[in-house]
């Protein structure tokens, strides 16, 4: 056992304070808004098939978000969280991975799950908390998860997935798997203790985990300059001894490139990587929020000009991989499909009353069984008060 607590550094004899200015953090940009590529850029590994899959995922993302925000306004779903303007961060992250890699997300990364192939029906059944929801109707809308697609079920507490991702990745390493874990979170969640716990442990325990921070400028109403005073989140990676990169989060090519390189490095070196993707939350935090109370229209308009989906479309058109007719057909089809799916899922029954007590443990305790029997007897007595379950057991 040995340790060297103090790294080498120059010895000085006059006090010398350091600050963030001694570390310059570059931001990777590959794609311009007009669809052209910066000279000298290294493009990600991506053929036409993958490029079109990424673009169709982005389009699906935007249409689903638009329709679900509208559905919430119509009172059809209770709650929704859109990712307007920052879709490239989640879709691009997933596109830079392999299917066997675990994704542990916060709550605004539905794009990654779409890229993995979670069906429209699965999204809808979760949001309508019906009996076909994989999560058995137990969590608020948008808390998706899928074992089959290696996408960890989302939980509401912020940042808790960060040290979990470190542990998950450590297990992948221990078992010698060709797999890493990618963990999404926002710049607000990076203030939680779990962020610091997760990053430090990942560096110390040498876990192949990619920490992917979506810095979208706001945590609900709190702007990032009231969240931290350092140089973004990237500067913290350096402090923890973690390989770090900052990218333009609205640049799908930069996001995919950075994630591909991060995966390669994490797997080869058994070490974590931190990606900070700079973006902007163009929409509200959730359907319960109204941004007009804390920011200006001018600020939003500035970022509308940076639309990541339009930027990718421009690039695809420049490659002659896409045209206006395909564009119109795609969006029209998607809108029709989403509308139809809403109408189906909202009519599917709620979960059976027995699922109240399943999955608390691997099998219900005798106390739980007794409590369920009590509830059932009560529901039978007052069926009008419990329309979802009465008469269905």
């Amino acid at each position, binding site marked *: 056992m040995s340790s060297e607590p103090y790294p080498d550094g120059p010895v000085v004899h006059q006090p010398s304070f350091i600050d963030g200015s001694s570390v310059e953090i570059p931001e990777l940009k590959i794609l311009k808004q007009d669809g052209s590529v910066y000279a000298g850029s290294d493009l990600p590994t991506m053929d036409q098939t993958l490029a079109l899959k990424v673009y169709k995922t982005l389009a699906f993302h935007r249409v689903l978000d638009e329709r679900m925000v509208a559905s919430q306004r119509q009172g059809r779903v209770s709650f929704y969280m859109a990712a307007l303007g920052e879709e490239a961060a989640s879709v691009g992250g997933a596109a830079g991975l392999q299917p066997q890699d675990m994704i542990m997300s916060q709550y605004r990364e539905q794009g990654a799950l779409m890229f993995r192939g979670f069906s429209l029906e699965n999204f809808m059944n979760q949001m309508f908390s019906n009996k076909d929801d994989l*999560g058995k109707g137990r*969590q608020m809308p948008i808390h998706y998860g899928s074992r089959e697609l290696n996408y960890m*079920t989302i939980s509401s507490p912020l940042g*808790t997935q960060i040290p979990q991702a470190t542990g998950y990745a450590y*297990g992948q390493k221990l078992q010698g798997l060709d797999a890493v874990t990618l963990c999404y979170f926002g710049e607000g969640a990076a203030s939680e203790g*779990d962020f610091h716990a997760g990053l430090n442990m990942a560096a110390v325990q040498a876990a192949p985990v990619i920490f992917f921070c979506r810095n979208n400028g706001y945590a609900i109403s709190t702007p990032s300059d009231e969240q931290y005073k350092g140089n973004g989140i990237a500067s913290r990676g350096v402090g923890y001894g973690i390989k770090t990169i900052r990218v333009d989060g609205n640049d799908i090519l930069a996001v995919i490139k950075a994630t591909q390189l991060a995966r390669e490095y994490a797997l080869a070196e058994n070490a974590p990587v931190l990606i900070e993707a700079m973006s902007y939350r163009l929409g509200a935090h959730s359907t319960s929020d109204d941004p007009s109370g804390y920011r200006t229209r001018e600020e939003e308009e500035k970022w509308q000009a940076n639309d990541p989906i339009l930027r990718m479309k421009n690039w695809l058109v420049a490659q002659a991989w896409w045209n206006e007719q395909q564009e119109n057909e795609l969006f029209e089809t998607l809108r029709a499909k989403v509308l139809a799916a809403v109408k189906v899922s909202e009519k599917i029954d709620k979960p059976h009353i027995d699922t109240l007590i399943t999955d608390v443990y691997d099998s219900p305790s005798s106390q739980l069984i007794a409590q369920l029997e009590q509830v059932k007897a009560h529901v039978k007595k007052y069926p009008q008060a419990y329309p979802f379950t009465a008469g269905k057991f």
Partner: protein
Amino acid sequence: MAQMNMLQAINNALDIAMAEDKNTLCFGEDVGHFGGVFRATSGLQDKYGKLRCFNTPLVEQGIIGFANGLAAQGSRPIAEIQFADYIFPAFDQIVNEAAKFRYRSGNEFNVGKLTVRTPYGGGIAGGLYHSQSPEAYFAHTPGLKVVVPRNPYQAKGLLLASIRDDNPVIFFEPKRLYRASVGEVPEEDYQLPLGKAEVVSEGTDITLLAWGAQMEVLQKAADLASNDGISCEVIDLRSILPWDIETIAHSVIKTGRLLISQEAPLTAGFASEIAATIQKECFLHLESPIARVCGLDTPYPLALEKEYVADHLKIFEAIKDSVHF
């Protein structure tokens, strides 16, 4: 059979668990080369390597978050929190994450392979922050199992059952007994059931119920009562969650009296839960009010520890009060 103290029995259980499954890991603060501040993990790093038994940084929420991730991934983590007094930074990872992992995902994911070991309890001049018994906080959380052994034999059998159980288990180890409690322990593999209380000695006049280190105190009080001609039925609850209502109710129906003793403060401790349930189950059989002999509703003191704790004399007095009610 071998003579073992509780630490040796725990170390032996961990050794068996790590030998049988290469995906079983032991980690926590000072757990690696040093073998833990109490030496419960002694020798495990030498035997199973640094990848499976290691030190973590000093961050309880990180230790349990990391363990949750490992368990969700399919590994079998045994995480140590150095003192139960320091488990609270990990409270969120335990009650909001581990306990709800299976339910919230509809069983898409679970952390059933997780075991958290942590030394608890007083009687070691440890003051406020090396003496607490926080089991009731966790007993209020559906999805967790909470287990407390009373001696080396119980510790080994219950720990192996906890490690292999497909639910997250918090395993509270009575640190006062780590070296003080010595007994016969089989060297081979065995398990004791979770969720089942054990009738340690039968009696007819009153049921005495406790768990962990408090069992020793309870037995001492029962011996005093026996000299006075009072026959006590002594029960070790062993599992706090889920708990064995049937065994306790069966005993109280027979004796007509119940005394519960816990190290933790009186108000809203697990004894309160037991009292509420047993008065419902056994209402017409009770000859006297259910008695609780517990710590005071204060932080755990240092100089006045003797006065604070639920010792055998306080229990003895409460037994007499109950029998002569």
